[in-house]
């Protein structure tokens, strides 16, 4: 990797990259570079939402394809990271849309080997673990905590979930409280 990618500030970087790269590089390249950079973090969140590594990978890729479309429409995206989280979030929320939009691609990739070794059954078990570990949390609280754990600011989280930054702090605090109570019980 090049030295100037050492800035661990996805926001500034994404902006700058988009600006400098768009002049010389195709949108495809810009999007691919961003994908390489942000994939791990988005993947974790998507995995949390879907409970399956394969779906998570898929969702993240679709989000980036949407980003590609968006950039091609010359739309201005101020905060690409936030935008991508929102895209992943709403994609997961309406899985029906995912299926429709992606049916074509799914078709060709249908006999593709799974991205990881784990089977659907194991995915399910894992999903149950999440369920158990976090089952006392409300959906909002869980989403806030997960997004915060990925390093998003309150404002960014608020944008993804369409709530205010102040509410984010309330959800986070409540989420942690409930989580701690559950955690104590499990001991």
């Amino acid at each position, binding site marked *: 990797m090049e030295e100037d990618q050492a800035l661990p500030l996805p926001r500034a970087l994404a902006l700058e990259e988009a600006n400098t790269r768009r002049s010389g590089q195709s949108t495809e390249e810009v999007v691919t570079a961003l994908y390489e950079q942000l994939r791990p973090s988005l993947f*974790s969140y998507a995995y949390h939402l879907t409970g399956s590594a394969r779906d998570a990978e898929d969702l993240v890729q679709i989000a980036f394809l949407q980003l590609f479309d968006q950039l091609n429409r010359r739309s201005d995206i101020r905060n690409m990271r936030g935008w991508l989280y929102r895209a992943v979030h709403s994609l997961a929320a309406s899985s029906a849309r995912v299926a429709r939009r992606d049916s074509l691609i799914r078709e060709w990739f249908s006999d593709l080997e799974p991205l990881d070794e784990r089977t659907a059954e194991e995915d399910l078990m894992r999903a149950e673990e999440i369920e158990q570990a976090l089952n006392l949390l409300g959906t909002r609280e869980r989403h806030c905590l997960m997004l915060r754990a990925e*390093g998003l600011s309150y404002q960014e989280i608020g944008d993804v979930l369409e709530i205010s930054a102040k509410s984010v702090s*309330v959800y986070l605090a409540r989420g942690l409280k409930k989580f701690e109570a559950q955690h104590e019980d499990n001991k």
Partner: protein
Amino acid sequence: MKTTNDGRTPVPRHLDDADLISYLDGELSRDEQEYARTHLESCWNCRSKLLAMQNSIENFLRVRKQVLPPEIPPSGAAVAQFRWRLFQHASVPVTLRLRLTTWLSTARWRELLPDFIPLLRYRKAAFATALTAVVLMVVLVDPLHWNRVSADELMARADAYEFLHESPSGRVARATVVIQKINLETNTEKQLGHIETDDDSLSSAVHLETELASGVVYKMTVHDRDKLSGLGVFSGDFDPATAGYLNAQSWFPRVTVSSYRRLIADRGFKGNDGAFITQEGETYQLHHPFVNKHASGITETVLLLNARNYAPRGVSIFTKHGDEQFEYRLTRKSFKLVERTPEVAQLFTASETLARSAETPVSTDNRAITDAAKTETATVTPPAVASAELEVEVLRLLSEVGADLGEQVEVARTNEGRLRVTGLVETEQRKAEILRALSSVSSNPVVRLDVQTVAEAVARQKQTGSERSTTIEGMEVAADTFPAYADLRRTMSDEEARVFAARVVSRSHAAMRHAWALKRLMGQFSREVLRTLPPEAHAKWISLIKNHARAFERESASLRQQLQPVFGVGGGASATGEITNDAELIRAVGQLVDLASSNYEVVRSAFTITNQSASTSAIRTPQFWQSLRTAEGIAAKIQN
């Protein structure tokens, strides 16, 4: 959070949970943060709540780690997959349709509607005519349009299939292709033979076993898949014009989409223009007509694809020379991925000289040999060593496509004196670009090209077991501002300051890349070689150096201009003098590279986020500014 009190009673207002987490996350306003800090100092109650909160965060992170997949699948494969998906997304008509839909649903279009409506009301006749015209156009144009697009789509899907299913790393792809020549007048067919290819995904070597109808078997190993080209022993079965074209396209008789692309590359039409699709049972036939009276005598080629999964099934080449019409039909008889067992791997370890024989077309006379299983062992003695002239030419070609800037492309000499170009590049396109640039020297037996993409390298690395695992550390950014941040913030917003820093660093890096390129060019030849370099080659070498010096000066000057308003220190004269010989040039470049690296370090430490403590003081010293100017001066001197 309310921070006001009536001023009389210093009764502290306790912090609630939301305040505490916001405090920990640095999300409070400055006043609130300050209040919270003072309060926490004095209030045990709140402090213990804060510690509990901190503890909860840690517990949460631990559980989160457990519920996340044990390891995120490695990026290499995912990125490669994504590239393809994006490529298809960008090229298939889905996007086209989507874009059209988006356009139709945009506000601008709706704004136009009211203007239309009165028109429609009063000019029904005109509207009807227009509508008919539109319908007619759609009826007439659409089938053509969709056919063309479908050809693109079909190729893209076949590409995707091939990429995903036929080159999985670590295994060997074994395919058998039967070649027939069919006389279309008499409808008689003749078996020419069959070729079994073993593609090694690990080393990119290909082992060939060609059996002619006569029973003669040729075995050989080509060490570089890209060098697999030419009709070889089948040349005699083709009309010379056709064979000439096929060899010129570096086509090799095999059934893959990538080799089919070579076949149609110069057919006289752009892309998939004029291509059409027919279907026969479970097979799609993608026809690519050649331009009328194409020099090769080829009238059309057809790619046959499995209609269910787009796997390539066969390739047909139709030719017409005078009254003679032939079809050369390549049919894939079998395809499988076999494990790379030691026995299989042995196929690829044949000596280098064997590989060379694949590049020199085997003369048809060899076919007279009747050994039932002759092993091709023709050796080609390599012509001495690569000249320094050739080396300069390779460097120049690389420079033309900008492959001498920071990318890991290297030109080195092997022990035998051959030139070896090794490269690690980001994308397939880039790889193709570099190989294309080098095409004029790639056939030279003393030049070896080994350019691979990151994805390929990752695939190889994975095999050797040195793959690094990916870990996610979302929260572990120690600092989030760079040393010069405070200075910039005096005149800029947060966003501006960060963008400024990113710009400066990338500018400085751009300058550095040219400095590195200069250094590499300098290190390429010893003084003895330089002395004996023919004048033309020497001039070429000098002009490469000047180009980089010019680019360096440009980048460095604009970096200086960017920094000047915020950190500028006046004074300092630039270097003077003239360069009269190679020795001075080498010294000047050495100086330039040293200065450039130290300047680069200063910029980097001031504008990037590091965990080590760094300061901006260096950037304000007269030495730094002097050094910036001196470097520019030297760069200018080199150009003269």
